[in-house]
């Protein structure tokens, strides 16, 4: 009996000490994410930086330079042939942009790269006004819907564009096009330089999973891109948020008629990002190391279903909205399933909180 009491006292002490250890170490456990055995998160992040993210920006820079060259030819001689050549370069650069869209954190976030390069739909009335007035400030945040790929799409490829470049405002229109391209070049260079000079080390050196960590950024952005696919890229123009009322002119790359191609490229690249380009050092492999192989298999198979269902929609999306409703409904469904898998299941398995939607109650 006496011994029992001593044991009880000791037990309380041990319990208290245990509680102390658990209570005070819980925080760091959460921040570092779940434990993945035999998996090098630093190597994963290095793979993302060196083999996916930085090359994607470098390629975008090259593509925008090629786009500028084609644009200069068109601006010097605005005719239908040169416009056609320009459209090829535009399409190619816009497709490449889909490879960096997912990287909206760190350097891209600090210059609002996605906002300035790809806010659609554009405010066409304001763009026309800018051209007519000849005064505008593209550095202002309020001008995000007057520039980037969508503004080029409107200025260069909307009906009657060639005639306008030969009309009374031709000089002002050329100047605006040049300013749009110059700004896209500057922003892309700023982001790429920042990655190369300072951010790469910050990114690869932080293997935590709490808000603001690279792993949390990646998972959040995977989910965010899926939300964009479900909303502005496919669902909203299709009428999913408006009781069936469609907005064909709000599609991405509307005038060039390349919305589906852009969507397919976006999702194909997202799968490449998810798998780390099948390097064995991707989010996909991290999931397997976390004993989540079944989930990973589900995600990979759902990626393929969603990509294939998007491919079944013919461009231009603006006319497919009325002619191919069945295919769009099917793609929308697959996209939604993939969104749920990533935003809920993958986020939970990797211990990442989805933070891009503020849950402000009031």
């Amino acid at each position, binding site marked *: 009996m006496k011994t029992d009491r001593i044991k009880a006292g000791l037990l309380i002490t041990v319990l208290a000490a245990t509680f102390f250890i658990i209570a*005070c170490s819980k925080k760091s456990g959460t921040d570092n994410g779940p434990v993945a055995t035999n998996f090098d998160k630093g190597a994963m992040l290095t793979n993302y930086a060196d083999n996916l993210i930085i090359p994607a920006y470098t390629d975008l820079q090259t593509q925008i330079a090629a786009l500028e060259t084609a644009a200069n030819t068109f601006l010097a001689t605005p005719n239908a042939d040169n416009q056609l050549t320009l459209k090829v370069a535009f399409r190619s650069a816009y497709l490449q942009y889909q490879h960096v869209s997912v990287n909206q954190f760190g350097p891209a976030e600090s210059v609002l*790269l996605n906002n300035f390069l790809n806010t659609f739909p554009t405010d066409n009335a304001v763009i026309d006004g800018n051209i007519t007035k000849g005064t505008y400030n593209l550095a202002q945040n309020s001008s995000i819907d007057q520039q980037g790929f969508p503004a080029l799409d409107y200025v260069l490829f909307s009906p009657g564009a060639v005639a306008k470049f030969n009309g009374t405002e031709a000089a002002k229109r050329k100047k605006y096009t040049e300013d749009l391209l110059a700004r896209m070049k500057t922003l892309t260079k700023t982001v790429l330089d920042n990655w190369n000079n300072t951010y790469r080390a910050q990114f690869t050196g932080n293997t935590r999973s709490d*808000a603001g960590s690279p792993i949390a950024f990646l998972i959040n952005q995977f989910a*965010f891109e899926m939300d964009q696919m479900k909303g502005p890229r496919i669902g909203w123009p299709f009428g999913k948020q408006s009781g069936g009322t469609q907005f064909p002119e709000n599609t991405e790359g509307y005038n060039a008629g390349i919305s589906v191609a852009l969507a397919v490229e976006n999702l194909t690249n997202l799968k490449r990002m998810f798998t780390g380009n099948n390097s064995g050092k991707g989010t996909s492999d991290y999931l397997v190391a976390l004993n989540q192989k079944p989930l990973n298999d589900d995600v990979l198979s759902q990626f393929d279903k969603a990509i294939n269902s998007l491919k079944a929609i013919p461009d231009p999306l603006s006319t497919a909205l009325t002619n191919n409703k069945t295919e769009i409904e099917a793609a929308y469904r697959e996209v939604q399933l993939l969104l749920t898998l990533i935003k809920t299941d993958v986020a939970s398995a990797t211990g990442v909180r989805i933070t891009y939607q503020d849950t*402000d*109650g009031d």
Partner: protein
Amino acid sequence: MKNYLHYPLAILAVAILATACSKDESEDTIPQYDVPATYNFEGANYLTSTQRVKMALELNAYLGSANTTDITAAKANDYFNNTNAPFADATLNTSGINLAAKTANGDTFKGYFTQRAANSLVRATPAAPGVAGFYGNRLVDGKGIEFNQAVAKGMMGALFFKEAVNILNNVANADNNTVTNGTTAMQRQWDEAFGYLSVPNDYDTAKVYANTDPIRPLLWGGYLAERGKGIQAGGVIFNAFLKGRAAIGAKDYVVVKEQAAIIQDKWEQLIAAAALAYTTIPTQSVNVGNLATQFHALSEGFGFISCFEYRSARTKLSNADFQTLKTIIGTDFYILINEPGFAKLVQAQNILKATYGLQ
């Protein structure tokens, strides 16, 4: 002798529990008294604090209704002054207390009521720079501010935080010998300060309170979780209130003062965390171009930054930096959100991060 061996061990265990996670206390200054896990102290009473929280919530709800209906400054003043029985909760009408008596800068708030009432009349007008009206579900003035947020968050400072800070400044000097209705003056003051935090007496930082829960955290209590999780505001402040109240019972005034300081400092850091969040949200790519979200956040930030005016004397925020923050958040919101690189908002973020050790 052996029979009682477990008692010291058990006490030691409790002592470890009580002090394990706080590093800046020496154990020998803490007499051995229990710190309970809930604020169920004998005779604890903070009814007037709770009533003022409820009054503020009804006032806020009235000002919020300007989105859908005409409101008047006169009616808002009735809520503020408790005149003409304005409250749906009838016990508040007969409580004999009001918001106005404890609110600093009352005229500022009355001015907000007037502006909010004026804005309610143009609630069907799309807002634009210089033009009051709506963005989405947000009703703003010509500079983008939602005055109901200026009131709600501003009064969290000018009434609740200010009162708590002032009480905690002097509480250790109050009479702790004369017992009236089961408590001493010092205990009643401490309880009143605790009431302004507005959390359930068994507050649990791990629990997610439904917004239908009748005993959920309110106002500051809600922000412990909404913006204070990263700095453990809920646990730190609640535990300090428990420990301080227990220390008053044991006449351990060193600990009382210590806990009062912990509460003041963490509460002020919570203001900073909220202000940081609301000066950051408008700059995030996901919100850029969404003026309803950007202006709502800035309006909350406007209110939270005004709370710093009532910070304790031990504050880390210099007056110069406070003035800078006020000037920034007092700038036309259209200018703040359109600036390349969000220069002013980033300056505000940097002051808050550097001063309060926030990320």
